[in-house]
């Protein structure tokens, strides 16, 4: 089967800054694919190139078989895009928003009527079609944008941070509708996100991008296995002398050891086996453990191991930026 998106050595430079550096990968048809990475990692630049907003400096990509450099018009007809910031017209009704958008794509009048009704129903906005979008909640707006981007039956749907700014309930509603749409339609979905639980909940495969480079690619399970090979043990420690930490690091039990403040994170092959041995090792070296938890590794752990930082720290920064940019208005 031909790939829905085939990225070939794509590179984007802004002056001295290389935002995207020779990225290569393919996204299969009907896949839900996640692009994760901190802000400034290059994922938005990558999406902007794939959606023909900006041209690549080098390399290219093919969307549904069309080249983003040579066949922009066909690419645009094959894709749906939901950008990070809302681009709905709040003065207009949901129906008008959909209708105008359909006209941009030359969808004939009869088809427009049917599809708008059908799509609005799918995301539960059918009875609100004649309300102005200004009266919608954040989650409803997001759902409307989602179906608006599907009005011309695109083959590939790009969603840039689709649930940023939504509360958890609205977020899971958007996920629900997205899964439903994906089941009903023959469509490939590419999502950028910095909510790792979003990527885990939705995506068949994810790519981790940082510093403009592809750091890792695979299914969430694959990635976790590849990086961790097992379980994560988190321990809250009272006292932990350096020699205890060293002993842990040098022992055969731990694949990786990280300590931040009084939280010790140890990656092990098998949690059940390692748990008592860690307690014993720390105790023997004068350390004291207060609580211990054993858990499956998350994408957050994967992210940490590939990029050397937690995506959450980055999220905090992003949110601060978001707030200040609003305050400045």
């Amino acid at each position, binding site marked *: 089967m031909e790939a829905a998106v085939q990225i070939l050595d794509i590179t984007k430079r802004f002056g001295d800054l290389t935002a995207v550096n020779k990225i290569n990968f393919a996204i299969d048809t009907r896949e839900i694919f996640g692009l994760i990475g901190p802000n400034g990692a290059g994922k938005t630049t990558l999406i902007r190139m794939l*959606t*023909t*907003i900006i041209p690549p400096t080098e390399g290219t990509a093919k969307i549904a078989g069309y080249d983003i450099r040579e066949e922009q*018009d066909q690419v*645009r*007809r094959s*894709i749906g*895009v939901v*950008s990070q*910031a*809302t*681009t709905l*017209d709040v*003065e*207009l009704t949901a129906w*008008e928003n959909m209708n*105008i*958008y359909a*006209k*941009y*794509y*030359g969808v004939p009048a009869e088809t427009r009527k049917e599809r708008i009704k059908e799509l609005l129903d799918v995301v539960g906005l059918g009875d609100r079609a004649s309300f*102005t979008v200004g009266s919608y909640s954040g989650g409803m707006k997001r759902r409307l944008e989602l179906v608006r981007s599907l009005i011309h039956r695109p083959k590939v749907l790009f969603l840039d941070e689709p649930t940023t700014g939504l509360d958890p309930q609205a977020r899971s509603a958007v996920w629900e509708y997205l899964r439903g749409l994906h089941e009903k339609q023959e469509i490939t979905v590419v999502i950028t996100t910095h909510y790792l639980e979003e990527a885990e909940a939705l995506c068949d495969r994810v790519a981790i991008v940082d510093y403009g480079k592809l750091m890792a690619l695979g299914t969430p399970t694959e990635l976790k296995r590849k990086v961790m090979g097992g379980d994560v043990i988190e321990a809250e420690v009272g006292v932990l002398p350096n020699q205890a930490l060293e002993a842990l690091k040098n022992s055969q039990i731990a694949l990786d050891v990280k300590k931040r403040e009084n939280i010790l994170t140890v990656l092990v092959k098998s949690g059940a086996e390692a748990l008592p041995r860690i307690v014993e090792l720390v105790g023997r070296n004068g350390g004291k453990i207060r609580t211990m938890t054993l858990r499956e590794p998350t994408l957050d752990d994967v992210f940490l191991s590939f990029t050397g930082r937690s995506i959450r720290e980055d999220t905090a920064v992003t949110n601060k930026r978001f707030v200040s940019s609003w305050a400045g208005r």
Partner: protein
Amino acid sequence: MKGALWVCERDLRKFLRQPAIVLGAIVGPFLTLILLGFAFGGAITHAPVAVVRESYGPVSTNFIDVLRNQQNCVYGGVNCANAYDLVDVSDLGTAQTMLRQGLLKAIVYIPLGFDSSIGNSAVATVYLDNTDPLSAAAISGLMTQAASQISAQVQITPPPDTVMTLDLANMYRDVLYIEFMAPGSLIQSIMFASIIGGGISILFDKQRGIIEGYLVTPLKQYEIVVGVLLAGVTKAMFSATTMLILAILFAGVRPMTNFFGFILIFFTLFLTSLGLISMMTAYAVRAPAPEVYQFTAFPINLILYFTSGAVYPLEGFPSWMRTMASINPEAYAIHALRVVMYKGAGLPAVIGDFGFLALFTVLMIALATAAFRRAL
């Protein structure tokens, strides 16, 4: 090219939902027209004028009667009935003191021996408060008129060689000041619509990523530009047409024109709309920050408006302002409108104005297209 229609449709639908935005473009110019037009353009009435008589012969009595009864006269395009009220003051000194105190606008002084020296350089003096040039000009004009009327009546034999009469013949009906101002207000409403309905709506669209959002759709770049300009022109034409109707209803504007004249009027409004919308669109797209646009757009409007001859004839401008007027599209538009509206002139009278406006418009469309190309 259909895409342009959809881009335009979106913009106009939004406008219909919030017409207040463009109504703002009508309120400002309309208030200016009504307030400025009636305040500046009104005839001088009931200006207090003193009569100081030291001579009581038939000619001076006749002269005072003419002054008293001057009715339905017209001076400077203005009906001057009751332009002044005459009061008798006993001596010149008292009258001059009153004038200095602001109680009088003028004094008609008929000196001792005036009547006896008729035909032999009889001089009456009108003292004017010329710190108020408009009243002074109106009063002196009326006085001069009355004096020449008396001169013509008095039969002197043999007639002196120096007597001559001047007949003033108006080519057109009298045009009130507010009518003189009205074309400028039509153009100003176009400019306001361009700033608000054109520039600011694009600024918002650009900020919200809607302009960039167009790029992922199959819309062509030129369709976006044409659509945006088309919507802007529609809004500007809407406000100019509304202004024209308001001016006819409330400002007493009476365009003396036939059907073809109205075509010329609307063509002028259209060319001006397209030019100004393109100009403000180009500026809004390229403005370094929304604030910069908002703070500079209205001064730009002031400069264009007051150097266009909208409120005062260009002939009264100092030379540097005349130079500005010569490159100001609003000046050409206003000239064309006045000529068509009040003189009933045809195409040959305005072809030069159209030429300049067309040139300006083409230039601005090119600028707007280039601005979009760089921004998109």
